[in-house]
Each structure stands twice: as structure tokens, then as C-alpha cells.
């Protein structure tokens, strides 16, 4: 039963991932990728890491849908079933992909995995949190803040109109001159 489930999830993950490059609709490609990720989340759940598995589902759904929005920006045709090629540098990409796959799969099969010594903790979510946030607290916090700063920095650099354009050099305009005001009015 467990083996069957594993095989189904593993095959789904790989096949859906490969199909991403076979379909000619951006929407289908996006959601096939999502399917692949969901299968991986299922595999993570099978290892008993409930929290991680569910968080993968959560993040991937949001991520793929946000990606779909960018897709509309660059291609507004709804449904978009027009056959189109989404490949660049096909040969190089194929070489990289195959090499990576062989390396990873080879590693997984050839490495002499250690035998489990202890027993899994009673509450894996708690154990995961403690191992991440106990000894590695500083690393995780630095990582988190760095990532967040990167996101904010990218947006600030990319935005054509920042807050100084909208609210004046001293940021003292009573309201912005946006055509469409937000709900707060700044």
C-alpha cells in the first residue's frame, strides 16, 4: 500500500514535471508544475513530516497562481490555447537537466545511507521547530531578514514610481496623486 502510494506520487511528480515542457499553453505548464510539486508534497507527507508537507502545498499553490498573474501580464489572451513554443536554449537546458537528474538519482541510489539509530520524536512538528529555531536560530533569522530585504529591495528598484514621487520629497503631501487611490490614501 505504502509502496504503491510512493510509486504513484513519484511517477506523478516526474511525469508532470516532464509534461511542463511538452504542453504549449502557459497555464497548463504552470499547473502541471504545481501538480508535480503537490506530488512531492505528498512524498514529504509520507515521511511523516506533516508540517513541511502541508506548508509545501500552501506555498506552491500561492506561488503558481502568482506566477499565473505574471503570465497574464505578458500574454493576455485568456485560455491561451494558441500553440506556442516556450523554449530557449533547448540543447543547453536539456544537457543541464539530464546531468542534474543523473547526478541526483545516482547519488540517491549509490550513497550508502546510514541506518536509523533513534526513534522519531513524538511530535515531529515540534522537533522540526526546535532543530530549526534552537541551534540554528541565528542562521534562520539572518536568512529570513535577508530574503525579506531582497524582496523589498527588488520591488523598490523595479517600481517606476516610488513614495517620493507620490508623496513629495519630504513625504508630507496630504495624499498621493495616484489615479486609483488605495484604501488608506497614502
Amino acid at each position, binding site marked *: 500500500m505504502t509502496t504503491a502510494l510512493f510509486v504513484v506520487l513519484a511517477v506523478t511528480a516526474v511525469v508532470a514535471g516532464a509534461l511542463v515542457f511538452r504542453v504549449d499553453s502557459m497555464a497548463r505548464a504552470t499547473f502541471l508544475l504545481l501538480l508535480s510539486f503537490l506530488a512531492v508534497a505528498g512524498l514529504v507527507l509520507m515521511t511523516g513530516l506533516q508540517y513541511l508537507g502541508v506548508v509545501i502545498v500552501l506555498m506552491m499553490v500561492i506561488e503558481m497562481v502568482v506566477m499565473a498573474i505574471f503570465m*497574464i*501580464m505578458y*500574454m*493576455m*489572451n485568456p485560455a491561451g490555447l494558441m500553440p506556442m513554443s516556450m523554449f530557449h536554449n533547448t540543447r543547453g537546458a536539456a544537457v543541464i537537466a539530464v546531468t542534474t537528474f543523473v547526478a541526483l538519482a545516482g547519488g540517491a541510489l549509490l550513497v550508502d545511507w546510514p541506518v536509523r539509530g533513534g526513534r522519531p520524536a513524538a511530535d515531529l512538528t515540534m522537533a522540526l521547530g526546535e532543530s530549526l529555531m534552537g541551534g540554528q536560530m541565528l542562521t534562520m533569522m539572518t536568512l529570513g531578514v535577508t530574503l525579506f530585504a531582497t524582496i523589498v529591495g527588488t520591488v523598490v528598484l523595479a517600481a*517606476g514610481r516610488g513614495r517620493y514621487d507620490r508623496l513629495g520629497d519630504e513625504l508630507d503631501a496630504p495624499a498621493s496623486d495616484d489615479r*486609483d*487611490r488605495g484604501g488608506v490614501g497614502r
Partner: protein
Amino acid sequence: MDLRSALLRAAVGCPHALVVPAPGTDRLRARVEQELARRRWPIASAPADADLVVVVGRPGRELAAVVDDIWVGVPAPRTLVRIADEDEVAAALDGVVRRLADADAQRAAASRSGSRARPPDPSPGGRSHGDGGHDELGPGEHDDHSAHTASDGGHHHHGGGMELPGGLAMADLGEDRDGLALDQLHVSLGPVLPEWPSGLVIDVVLQGDVIQEARSRFLDLDEQGATERLPDAARALDTAARVLALAGWEGPAARARGLRDALLSGADTAHVPEELDDLRRRVRRSRLLRWTFRSAGAGRSEILDALDDVLASAGVAVAGTGEEGHVGIDLATLDARLVGAQFAAARLVVAVADPQPRPAPDLPTAPGGAS
């Protein structure tokens, strides 16, 4: 079999009606809406949601083509009613449920017509009917391949442009308001949209949901017969009802419509001024409405001010004290206002401007009069 027909009757007992008014039939349309509300038949938002298409007035050539297009997208069981006179309204709607529940006739009609909707047993050729590729893009919205060049022909020019499966126009690139080169789409809005002026079509260039270019026109201008206009008060209430409905405030919208109908039928209008005041007070006091309508310019809301003006003019007209009518807007001004607006805002702008096919001869067209 008996149970089946009973179930079918129950299923179609409360049909959703899609109202397709010809330009200049506001009075008749109001009468139809009143009768639908009396029967508690919901107004459909789109052809897909409709069981019943009510064609109000005598459509000209262009609108007739639109009706044909829409009819293809209405799922069976379905029926179409043409109403050209106020006396026919109740009688025409009376037969609707019986016809919808007539399974044999529905089935025969479904197999006859080239319905785009999937037949009950999907046949391999199910998709072939789209051969002309001119089905509507959305509810009452027609893709117009020639929109880039000149778009005031009919709805069925599918000449140039790149043909996609299904005959949609390929989107092209354009600069957005932040200077990014993004896709834009040429679509026509109307003439069959909820809370939309009769017979109006606006060809827009849409980027995301921001309108970049707009050109409004009325269908069948050349063959339009005598227009029957609503009295000032009723028209103002009609406009207010549309704006409120677009704002998603269904209750007050229905009340405004009820007041309009009371004025039109002239039966019992004693309560109208009081309820009108009440409605106006509610609109002015709603902070959420003010918040959601508020546009550029601190604290002021053009739409809300216009809505308040409309309600005030309704009050004036009901009281019969002044001759200040609700002034229409000319299409060029409307187009200018739509450019740069988001879709939701644009819908409100159109609803509150409420353009009419021909400006009233005795009233000067005052740009900006509606706000």
C-alpha cells in the same frame, strides 16, 4: 415520467431572465424589469446564467445580430421572448415557464439549432459549430478583429489580425502606465452587460483591467425609431439603481428600482418622496460606499457626488419644483473619462453618466454635467 415532468417544472419555475433592450426603450425595459421583479425572476448577469432572453423593443440590424449571437450561448432549456409593447409584458412572460418545461420541444429545438453549448450526449463534432469563429468573447461582448483599424462596422468583421483557435483576436503589446511593455487586448463592451445603457457599445483597449483607449457608439443609430424617454425622476432613479447595483449594494438598488416603478405606474406615489429622502440619506451616510467610491483628489468622490446629484435631481423632479433635468453626456466626453480607468471604475463612470442615443434637443449637452 410524471415525476420527471414535475421535477422539470420545479426546475424551470423561476427562470433567470437576460434582458436585451433596444436603444431608446427605457420605459418598456423598466416595465419588463418591474414584472420580472414581481415574479421574483432574477435578472441574469450573462447568457450562460439565463434561461430566458427578453428582447425589449424592436432591435435594428446590429442588435438583432447581437441577439442571435447571445442566443447561441444560452444553455437549454431556454426560450426567447420579444416584447414590443407594454400591454404584452405580462402575457408574454406568462407562457415562459410552460415552454421551458416542455421537454420534447426543448429537445427538438436543441437538436435543430447549432447550439454552441454541449449537447447532452457529447458528439465528436461538438465543436464544429464554431466554424465562423464569431461567438462572443464574453457575455454580450464581441471580439472585433478590425478594432485596431476602424471598428464601427457590425460585430462580425473577422478580417485581419491573427486567428486563434476559436477566433479570438491575438493580444498585442503596448506600454502600460508604468512604462512596461505588456499585453493589451481589444474588446468591445456591451451591448448586453448587467446595468449597462441600452444599445451602447464601447470598443476598448484593455491592459490588465485598465482601459487605455475607449470609443463609444450606439448600435443602430441610423434605423432608430422614436425614442421613448423616461420622465426625469424615473430616469434619475434608474441611473441610481444601476450605480448602486454595480457597487454591489443590491438592497438599495432594488429599492431605487421599486421607486422608479412606482413613479412610472403612477399608482401610489405618496410614499415616494419620503423613501427617496431615506435612500439619499443612506447613500450619503454609508462610509463604506464613500470609501470604496473615493477616487483621486482627497476625500472627494466624483462617482458618489454624481450619485448624490442624481438622487437629488430625482427628488426635485418628484416634487415638481424645478425643471433641472438629469443632463446626459456626449460620447466623446465619456470616452475621455474612461481612459486610464480600471474596469470597475469604468463601469461606474458609464453607469453614472448614463449616455443616451440622442441628446435631448432642448437641453444643452454640458460636459461634466453628470459629475
